[in-house]
């Protein structure tokens, strides 16, 4: 016959008991996900979209930043000579410009060398080979002194433009500055969008968990009556939040990889337009791992907020209902 006893669990220590409770809560919560595949899939997708969209933009910006970072941004002028200017004319202009006090150095880019580099970087040998003549002009890259202001650069460009044999003068650093400014704005936009979407994910998850708590109201009340702590009552919902979050993170990683693959073409073309030899970087292990950890953390946070509040409310309600 059953004998009354104090809490005697034999060799079964507190640590083992704690682990058993967690194992049971984790397993029960997972089973709840499995028996509701539609709810689970929709919740995972909502979290995944909230995580994947900012992550994809972040990855794109990361790639563009690498391009901008790889560009030499010291102020310089590209002096394009007329198409009929021969090499001796270009060398003479180089000597003239080198003698100017405000100029540090002048590098001559031979058009034949420039063409071979272009073919090497763009793999457009077939197209270039079909041309009757080299379309590139000889180019002088002018490096002015470091103290030159933007206005002085413009004035220098105008003076160089007047020299015989010069077709066009380009201030090369402008596009880099524009790209950097656009990237800075992009980072902020992605961060703001990411914050809003994560907040949305927390709210959606919180609401899903609140409904799950409502559905298991009786269990919480019984657990409270027979001596379960609030932590014990909350635990299955914390695991539920964790599974939702981790699952959402994994789906987000999958979406990110799919979107990266889909975006690689246009982004690589963009790199080419900015004369960068690199291609779009794949998410690697960092992004999927970060998304899974972030998803899990969001799930736990949402569950902690929702379960903490609603379980407490239900326990208070239990006391008033039993009156």
């Amino acid at each position, binding site marked *: *016959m*059953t*004998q*009354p*006893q*104090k*809490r005697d*669990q*034999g060799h*079964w220590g*507190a640590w*083992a*008991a*704690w682990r*058993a*409770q967690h194992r*049971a809560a984790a397993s029960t919560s997972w089973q709840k996900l499995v028996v509701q595949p539609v709810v689970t899939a929709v919740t995972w997708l909502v979290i995944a979209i909230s995580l994947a969209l900012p992550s994809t933009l972040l990855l794109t910006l990361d790639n563009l930043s690498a391009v901008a970072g790889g560009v030499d941004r010291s102020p310089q002028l590209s002096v394009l000579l007329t198409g009929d200017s021969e090499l001796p004319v270009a060398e003479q202009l180089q000597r003239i410009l080198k003698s100017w006090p405000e100029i540090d150095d002048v590098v001559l880019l031979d058009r034949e060398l420039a063409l071979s580099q272009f073919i090497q970087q763009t793999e457009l040998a077939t197209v270039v080979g079909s041309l009757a003549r080299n379309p590139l002009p000889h180019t002088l890259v002018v490096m002015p002194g470091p103290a030159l202001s933007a206005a002085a650069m413009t004035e220098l460009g105008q003076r160089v433009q007047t020299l015989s044999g010069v077709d066009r003068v380009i201030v090369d650093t402008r596009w880099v500055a524009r790209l950097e400014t656009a990237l800075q704005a992009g980072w902020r936009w992605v961060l703001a969008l990411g914050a809003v979407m994560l907040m949305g994910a927390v709210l959606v998850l919180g609401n899903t968990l609140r409904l799950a708590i409502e559905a*298991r109201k*009786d*269990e919480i*009340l*019984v*657990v409270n*009556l*027979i*001596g*379960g*702590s609030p932590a*014990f009552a909350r635990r299955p919902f914390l695991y539920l939040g964790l599974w939702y979050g981790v699952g959402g993170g994994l789906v987000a990683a999958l979406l990110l990889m799919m979107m990266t693959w889909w975006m690689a073409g246009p982004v690589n073309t963009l790199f080419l337009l900015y004369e960068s030899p690199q291609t779009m970087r794949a998410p690697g292990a960092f992004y999927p791992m970060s998304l899974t950890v972030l998803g899990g953390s969001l799930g736990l946070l949402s569950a902690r907020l929702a379960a903490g509040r609603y379980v407490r409310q239900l326990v208070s309600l*239990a*006391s008033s209902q*039993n*009156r």
Partner: protein
Amino acid sequence: MIEFDRVSRRFGQQDALRNLNLQIDDGEMALLTGHSGAGKSTLLRLLLLLDRPTGGQILVDGQSTKQVQGNAVGHYRRRFGVVFQEHRLLFDRNVRDNIALPLEIAGFSLHDTNRRVRAALDKVGLLAKERADPNGLSGGEQQRVAIARAVVARPEFLIADEPTGNLDPALSVEIMTLFEAFNQVGVTVLVATHDLSLIARSRHRLMTLAAGQLMQAGVA
């Protein structure tokens, strides 16, 4: 031992319990009776710390329940097995999982849990229904599952609030026989009931509550 020392519970202008003094010794079985609103449920709720007295104190094994706060409330409640009139079974769990709940809370191993659940089911005569859905059980069987859940963790005290309220007389006797069996092995049992047939056949101490006060105590 459970002792109510001048315990009062007031709701607004109304006294649910008024300067109540009573004592239940270790290993005793007692019946608590009285009309609806006499204070039976309030007394049990105060004992289970679902509510707190507005006056006096409750002592369990000499310790005042006033000192039981926060996380200690859960540990305190685990000393009690509780049976309700409406069973309070969880209908999304099978019989085994319902009975295992107090053991999960106490952190028993799976092996011990299975062993104890089967032992408790054997005591209430439902071993064959271990994997059954509670929805498919009769009222008497559901109440026996609730009793198995109440005793599976081997509590010191077994508290029952109108445990036979929804049962026919034959099943009520069966349930009371189970309580007596647990009492015989040392469990302190307190049954709140207004089932006169049960009271008439009981050989245990009867306490009658009226208007929040103990009117009469003696063997039924």
